[in-house]
């Protein structure tokens, strides 16, 4: 039996309804509106920890029955699907045409496309392939009046009307419920390889700088600290070098290009006096991609943060984070300035406040931020879950008030309690 209640932080038990069609979903929205109930959209519930606790009672809407493939014109390299489709199913279908959505999504058997969009999930290959906003061509969503509205279209280039797609991506379900999505696709790469480079703290920045100047064009520049490497080796048996830091340089392209890049980067690093190198190509690289995708979310940690900083400050930021209490497992998408840290240590609230303040201070100097993807519910009202407020908060509030004036969707959970 499917559970008929759900828990979102301290909202428990919330009744869960599973609409079987868009019209049933619309009906639920209208009835919620009539009874002044809030609605909490649910996909695979893999990221339900993200955000502040709900501020109003309401019901969970399980959207996993809306999982149909509407149209897959493979030769146009687009697909239109309902948003409840699990990522694994989507990728399997695309693989039959040698295509894919090049977004790394953890727990793909459970994670739905709608949920993936709501949290704007991304992973190691974002450096080469970009993020979801680069792939969503059109959407349908049920709005605050229970109407199904659309924006964008099904063609790869389209500037008719406002691009509401951008607004919905990463909006944590606070503006409406995504029902259908049209995606732009990519061909699967002919070849892939990862080059592993270990390094001590003193040379971390010069290593990143060296790779930045390389003639090669990596798709991934992920950095892991020793704690992360130990965890990966223990949990996944990958036998990664247990160095203080490991840089994973990933390549994807046609075979000659990948082969050339691997040789080239090895030469460049050797010339710069950087050794301790290992290369894994083709299928041998696959488990590592998976680990890099799952690590920040694998078995929910007690505390998980995500920082967005300038790429040139990643090394310093990581070194700073490692010095803090908590023995964080750190992973950085270093080319994009994204640093993820997780810990299961019993930090106190005060310790956590202090360390967040420290990290926030560093991120802020480059206009970056630090948010909490996960922490104990009782801390959420005391910690800056969504980081430091930026100057555009009032405009975000204005958008929310215009598109969801009665606070129907996921009330209280997003930035600034939107």
């Amino acid at each position, binding site marked *: 039996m499917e559970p008929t209640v759900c828990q979102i932080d301290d909202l428990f038990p919330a009744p869960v309804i599973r609409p079987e069609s868009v019209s049933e979903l619309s009906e639920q929205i209208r009835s919620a509106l009539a009874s002044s109930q809030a609605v909490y959209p649910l996909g695979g519930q893999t990221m339900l920890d993200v955000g502040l606790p709900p501020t109003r009672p309401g019901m969970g809407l399980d959207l996993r029955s809306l999982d149909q493939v509407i149209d897959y014109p493979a030769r146009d390299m687009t697909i239109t699907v309902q948003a409840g489709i699990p990522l694994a199913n989507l990728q399997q279908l695309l693989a039959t045409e040698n295509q894919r959505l090049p977004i790394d999504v953890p727990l793909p058997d459970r994670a739905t496309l709608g949920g993936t969009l709501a949290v704007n999930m991304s992973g190691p290959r974002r450096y080469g392939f970009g993020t979801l906003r*680069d792939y969503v061509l059109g959407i349908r969503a049920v709005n605050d009046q229970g109407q*199904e509205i659309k924006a964008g279209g099904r063609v790869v*280039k389209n500037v008719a*009307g406002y691009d*509401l797609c951008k*607004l919905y991506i990463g909006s944590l379900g606070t503006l409406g419920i995504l029902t259908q999505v049209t995606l732009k696709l990519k061909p699967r790469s002919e070849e892939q390889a990862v080059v592993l480079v270990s390094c001590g703290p003193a040379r971390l920045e010069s290593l990143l700088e060296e790779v930045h100047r390389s003639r090669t064009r990596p798709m991934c520049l992920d950095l892991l600290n020793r704690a992360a490497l130990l965890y990966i080796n223990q949990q996944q048996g990958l036998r990664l070098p247990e160095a203080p830091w490991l840089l994973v340089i990933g390549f994807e392209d046609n075979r000659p290009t990948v082969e050339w890049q691997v040789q080239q980067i090895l030469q460049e690093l050797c010339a710069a006096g950087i050794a301790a190198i290992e290369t894994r190509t083709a299928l041998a690289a696959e488990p590592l991609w998976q680990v890099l995708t799952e690590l920040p979310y694998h078995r929910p940690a007690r505390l998980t943060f995500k920082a967005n900083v300038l790429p040139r400050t990643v090394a310093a930021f990581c070194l700073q984070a490692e010095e803090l209490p908590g023995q964080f497992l750190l992973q950085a998408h270093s080319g994009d300035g*994204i640093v993820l840290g997780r810990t299961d240590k019993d930090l106190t609230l005060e310790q956590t406040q202090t360390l967040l303040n420290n990290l926030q201070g560093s991120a802020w100097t480059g206009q970056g931020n630090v948010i909490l993807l996960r922490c104990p519910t009782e801390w959420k009202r005391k910690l800056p879950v969504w980081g430091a407020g930026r100057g*555009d908060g009032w405009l975000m509030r204005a958008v929310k008030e215009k598109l969801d004036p009665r606070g129907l969707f996921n009330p209280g959970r997003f930035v600034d309690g939107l």
Partner: protein
Amino acid sequence: MVNQSAANLVDRLRTIVGRDALLTSPSDLLVYECDGYTIEKNKPDVVVLPTSTDQVVQIVKVCNECAVPFLPRGAGTSLAGGCLPVGGGVMIALTRMKRIVEVSTRDRYAVVEAGVVNLWLSNHLKAQGFHYAPDPSSQGACTIGGNVATNSGGPHTLKYGVTVNHILGLEFVLPDGRVVQTGGPCQDNPGYDLTGVIVGSEGTFGIATKAWVRITRNPEAYRTLLGVFETVDDATNTISDIIGAGIIPGALEMLDQLILQAVEAAFHFGFPLDAGAVLIMEVDGLEAGLDADAERITAIARRNKAREVRHAASDAERLLLWKCRKQAFGAVGRLAPSYCTQDGVVPRTKLPHILREIQRIGAQHQIRIANVFHAGDGNIHPILLFDERDPDQVQRVLRASHQILEACIRAGGSVTGEHGIGVEKIDFMPQLFTPEDLNMMVRLRSAFNPENRCSPAKMFPTAGACIEPSKAGRRAAL
């Protein structure tokens, strides 16, 4: 405007920007009466040319106090009337805000003021091995601010994406004069992607004064191929097969027979004048893999009955080929005194169908139509040739344009891939969107531009749920 308050408004604006940065004489205003869409014209009452965000803020505040509409303008190269001053008012031309403020190749961004010309930025970055990827054909004149407003594309969008994929943040003056920074140099800022939704809003949300843009490393090398085909069908099948084979070329551009004649007369590249269509097919990236891709593309073209596949032998030849493509519109003057270009999009596989439709519609209205377009994206640019002195021809061109765009909608596409809705395509919005869809968009606009004083009468039809000013200010140029 009432004369007295008008004089007062002009005085106050002059105080803000200075005498040299304010235009009111009819001859000066003539330049600003339309953009690249010349079918409708209307002069603004006054043009101001601010040099700073602070001046823009002051101008906007004065406009509000005087209850006068205003709108931003870049270089005026837009093609759908996006900067047509409907109902007159104050035009804020941003061309004097042209500083490149900062470049960080390590972090892959640059900060530019809105009036920086697209190509200047790429030229500026050249020595460091970087460029700004979106490259509309007007890139020698159009501004980044204008690109932001229209979400411009260009020939290289197939691989590199359109403007929105390259904008990280904006400094934005809201229509009430408040300044906000959305996004910035860091990615993944918490909260709504306001930057993403402002891009392409065609000036109806406010005025972008500064942009954080992504910069892209230059490709190490190119292979530029010219495929010569007897028929348009063979050329379009080649496009589908290239993409189907998993190759994403940097560009895939098609020129049909009529446009080839004009381009050849202008640039003497050596195009075969009897070909049904030619394809410019370019792969770029690291030298190591390009020959493999070029060989596969050549084989695919041959399989689709290409008469000939030529390789650009030198960088000079490649640049000449691109000059022919990017300046094709300029060469059209050799075919007819006036032209009107359309910007429809269809799924790539529907290209043969839509090109046949275009031919049929042209014949029906006795209008010659040339085609040069971004074939890889399915983004067509039929060029309708006419003489604007003949009102009958003008009417036929408008009817034919309309039918072409309707055919695009029927084929599952859109009426604009990169030019925007502006005033030209407002009437198509109800065909693409339901009243509920449009109402959501108007609600969103009201968060930014509640009084609709900035760029009024754009993008949305007057009828329906929202109250829009009338079109009284629009004057046909016929």
